[in-house]
């Protein structure tokens, strides 16, 4: 009799597909989850829905032609994507970049970081059921995009940072508007934080959920806000400095486990909010220090890199982005391998997910903040 009851009570795991068209997966990510009731037993991410062959394409393009393809990887942080590639080519070419161009690059990259984190803030609030923060964040993001539109001509895929410098010069009116934006932004960031981050419901939804410990982060090679959220003080802008980041004074925010466990969703959220404040600091120093001068250095018309290879990594809003560029002395790259942080982060899902509720899994995926364009390339 006893064994019969056990036979009757036996449960099976139910397989559910989350995605590819699930709005909470931020793109076309399919997560195959095995659920036990409402609790996730296993989550397997399936990638490749947005694969565009960027690495193979770039083998058939000249060095300038690769830049538009770099944009399309992480379409929410195109400026940062371009910078890494351009730095790699410049280092191999030995180009001297004018000071003004370097300042403009830093300026746009930090503005892009704010825009990207605002997007995270908005969509993360949507994931957790609050709609209006998304609209407020987009209002501020619009100001940044408008400035980018005037600088480069387009709103998302800029092709603005060129080999040797930048495309267009920034004028005083735009600098003034950025200055005003910095002041309003640091005020509205505090407002946003009290609207979402300090909300009890938000805290209850995110604390001790989706914990990424320091060990787990090191094991997978996680970077960016994930690593800093786990309490590791690591930022390439400071530790392996590039461009002119060594001249600026800023802090690296790290997670402290203030509301729950160290490395939970709330920590990652808070690290990003703090990073926006740091970016504003960098922008203000940039505005003070910007110099007059040329915006593009001497670059040959047909770029031919010497034989060799280079690995250049930069700190993007979502983590560390690395370009491994191999040249065989021709006009085209022999191989361009991109190391994307989002790919690493999405691979961590099977380790984060077990034991979470489905709604908490959505919160975890949102807090990891992946862009599928960068995962699949």
């Amino acid at each position: 009799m006893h064994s019969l009851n056990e036979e009757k009570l036996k449960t099976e795991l139910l397989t559910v597909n989350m995605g590819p068209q699930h709005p909470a997966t931020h793109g076309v990510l399919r997560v195959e989850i095995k659920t036990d009731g409402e609790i996730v037993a296993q989550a397997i991410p399936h990638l490749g829905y947005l694969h565009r062959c960027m690495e193979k394409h770039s083998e058939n393009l000249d060095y300038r032609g690769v830049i538009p393809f770099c944009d399309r990887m992480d379409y929410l942080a195109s400026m940062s994507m371009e910078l890494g590639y351009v730095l790699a080519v410049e280092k191999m070419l030995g180009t001297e970049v004018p000071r003004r161009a370097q300042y403009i690059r830093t300026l746009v990259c930090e503005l892009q970081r704010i825009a990207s984190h605002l997007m995270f803030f908005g969509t993360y609030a949507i994931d957790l059921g609050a709609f209006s923060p998304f609209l407020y964040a987009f209002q501020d993001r619009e100001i940044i995009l408008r400035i980018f539109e005037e600088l480069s001509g387009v709103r998302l895929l800029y092709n603005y940072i060129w080999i040797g410098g930048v495309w267009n010069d920034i004028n005083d009116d735009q600098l003034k508007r950025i200055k005003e934006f910095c002041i309003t932004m640091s005020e509205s960031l505090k407002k946003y934080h009290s609207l979402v981050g300090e909300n009890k419901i938000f805290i209850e939804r995110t604390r001790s959920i989706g914990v990424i410990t320091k060990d787990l982060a090191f094991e997978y090679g996680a970077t960016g806000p994930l690593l800093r959220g786990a309490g590791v003080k690591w930022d390439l802008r400071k530790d392996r400095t590039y461009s002119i980041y060594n001249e600026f004074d800023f802090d690296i925010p790290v997670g402290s486990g203030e509301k729950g466990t160290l490395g939970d969703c709330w920590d990652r959220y808070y690290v990003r909010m703090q990073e926006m404040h740091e970016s504003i600091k960098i922008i203000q120093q940039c505005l003070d220090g910007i110099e007059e001068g040329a915006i593009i250095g001497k670059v040959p018309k047909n770029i031919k890199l010497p034989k060799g290879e280079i690995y250049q990594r930069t700190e993007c809003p979502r983590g560390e982005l690395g370009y491994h560029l191999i040249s065989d002395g021709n006009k085209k790259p022999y191989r361009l391998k991109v190391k994307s942080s989002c790919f690493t982060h999405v691979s961590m899902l099977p380790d984060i997910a077990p034991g979470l509720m489905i709604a908490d899994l959505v919160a975890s995926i949102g807090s990891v903040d992946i862009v599928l364009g960068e995962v699949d390339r």
Partner: protein
Amino acid sequence: MSNDILNDLAYRKPITLRVYFKNIYDAIRTTLKGMSITIKYVYGVKPVTLEYPEVREELPANSRSRLFNDVENCISCMQCSAACPVDCIYISAVRREKEAPALKTKNGQAIRLDLTQYTIDTALCCYCGLCTTVCPTECLTHTQDYEFSQYTLDNMKYDYLDPQVRTWRNRLIKN
């Protein structure tokens, strides 16, 4: 397997009565704080959304929208099609006959080739702007035109030698 997972949920410890009421108080307090911010937005912030079909946005001067080639100034140098990363520009040209009257572009370059085809597949174009930067006579430009949806993909192929397409010039190119 499923039991292990259920045990993992044990971190949700039982709470005291005091914590229970404090949680309720905190939830109400912070939600009201958020609501007050939202109400400020309702009455204090002007709407920023453009109501598109009625209000049309003027794009910035160097905006990279629809491409336009002023074929009268084109010297068929093919640099744009070489620079294009997606190969969406199709050009063919023939040598200009010696007897034909000499033509010059706006900036004084002699036209030695006659264009027979200049087509851009706008559906393929990625609007990166690399073709316009290499153009020696600056005849290929991005315009501020952004309303050009079509019913079929074929209609997205613009032949700039077509007289109808040529008439855009008056509308698009200032000066």
